[in-house]
């Protein structure tokens, strides 16, 4: 819905719109050592669409998903699952150099996270949302006119404090993907 609203607004404002759509898949690291120890690094998927606003400056929106990790937690090594995912909206500057186009992005992510622990003594429910900065960079290669292969790097610091403990759910994402651009 957010995507639809954003896209409709831009379509009304801009006469000729260059649009991209793509899909990234890659590795997602975890900054917090305890999270890493219990759940480990994982993978993530990031479908996205973007729109060129003006001379390489564009707006991209996507949804990061796929980070769902199981582990054993605590003194009693009880089964646990951590899921993290969320929307990212970024302002991206892309500079086209022939077949390649490096880009930089700065945005905002709204992430939901949920921890479940299979224990009668897990007395708190961890299921919340937290927003944070998203820094991204990457390069697109256009083997065909409207098709690109993308290598993407994101760094997302995401400090959360649902209770008394502050936990960094952030980390890096190293992804590869495929996309297409077309004009409306």
């Amino acid at each position: 819905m957010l995507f639809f609203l954003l896209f409709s607004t831009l379509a009304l404002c801009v006469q000729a719109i260059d649009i991209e759509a793509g899909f990234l898949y890659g590795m997602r690291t975890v900054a917090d050592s305890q999270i890493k120890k219990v759940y480990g690094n994982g993978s993530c998927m990031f479908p996205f669409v973007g729109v060129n606003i003006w001379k390489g400056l564009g707006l991209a929106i996507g949804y990061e998903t796929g980070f769902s990790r199981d582990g054993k937690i605590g003194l009693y090594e009880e089964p646990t699952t951590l899921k993290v995912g969320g929307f990212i909206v970024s302002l991206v500057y892309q500079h086209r150099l022939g077949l390649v186009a490096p880009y930089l992005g700065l945005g905002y992510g709204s992430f939901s996270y949920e921890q479940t622990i299979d224990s009668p003594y897990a007395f708190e429910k961890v299921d919340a949302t937290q927003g944070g900065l998203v820094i991204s960079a990457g390069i697109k290669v256009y083997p065909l006119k409207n098709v690109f292969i993308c290598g993407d790097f994101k760094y997302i610091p995401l400090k959360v404090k649902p209770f008394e403990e502050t936990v960094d759910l952030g980390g890096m994402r190293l992804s590869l993907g495929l996309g297409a651009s077309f004009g409306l």
Partner: protein
Amino acid sequence: MKRIVLVVGLVLMISSALGAKPWVLVSSSDFGHYYVLDLGTWPVSVLGFFNISLIVGLLDVEPYPNNCYALFSTHDAGAVVRIDITDPNHPIESSSLDLSGRAFAPLDIAIPKEGGFAVVGEGSNMNRIVFIDLTDPDFKTYSIYHLKTDGAAAEAVAVTPDGQTVIICDSWHNRIIYGQVNESKSGLVSENTLSTQFLPINVSISPDGRTALVVNFFSQSFSVLRIDGPGAVVPGSPSSLLVWTYPQSIAFSPDGSRAYIYSTSYSSWPDRLSCYSVIAPGQVNPHITLVDLMSKSGAAYFGVDLLAVSLDGMLAIAGGWLDPGGLSQVLLDSYDVSLIPLKSYEHPRGLAVFDEALVYPPAEPTCTRLVNDFIFYKEYVNRLTWSVNPNNLGAPVTVRIYRKNLGEPDSEFQLLQEFDQSLASYDDRGLRKDQNFVYRFTSVLRTGKESLPTDLETNFGGLMFKK
């Protein structure tokens, strides 16, 4: 009607005078039978008749100091059988120590009040006694001690209440062997001998551990000994006294001021109870009170105690299974004698009085605060530990842990968990950081009897201490 009320009142008065709870275990010569007498009734009645799994005659019987178990010796089967007597109405065979593989034929059993071990004499004349570790819940730990004294036999044994001194009747050499128990309760650090008269077959030590009497069967006498310290035994005063007929067993009154000797005969003379005053350690007043008994044993049972005195010292029970069949009960203030009739198959041998089972709370309770890190929040855990109380001597108890909030003296303790005592740790989970409690530990017997509690207060962030 008035007569009935009067009789009932009299019975209650006598029962009260005799003490309400003690019982007597009686081993039988027949097929692993034993039975329990109820001393809380008058006349004394047979509470129940029970079997062990071995089909063999039982000899001596000895209760543990905490009255949770009793041991029976089975000479012919080479075993010492442990019976759970926490519920006198329903004793249960708990386990047995099979010594037949060592050609050991158990006779007399002695258990000191302190020390957590039993000493067992044997009937195979192989110069040995066995030390059994009573703290082993599985009843499997023992050591055979070979006497250093040449040609020794060890039929009857006695141990001082402090568990320091053992006296052994070397019956066929007319002497006693005595010595100090070693630190590991597995043997003697020293051995010495004292001559007795002809065929010493039983020995008993007074409750204060200072006087020992040895009955010399064929001499129709008993020897008096004074115990001066661990492993130190000297002749008493007088060194011996004659008794009528063949003395078999000795029992002291609970306060140690009187000694009773049960003697039998091979003739038509009745079995007798001889009563003496113990006037000082190792000193016996030669004045004798003789009581003819109504039962008769007519045999020399080496080391088997055929005489027991109630815990209040008011009543003696004496054995004997020849005609007319039964046990004699003697009121020791009036010396009135009556018969406890037994059925034809109830052939009594060893006798032992036991009281209500004692149970002690778990020992050395501790609490350690643990933090269970769930990353986003922390669960606090109180890890409670305890150890088996050695005074329970392996008794089958469960451990109960109760809890209440610290600083709420008027609140009730809530039961947290109940465990088998072998589980010596429990994690009280799901706690918040600032929660502190008073934990209460108790031990519970199978009868439901609960020990006095041991309390433990937690004050994390401050001190933790045991009450």
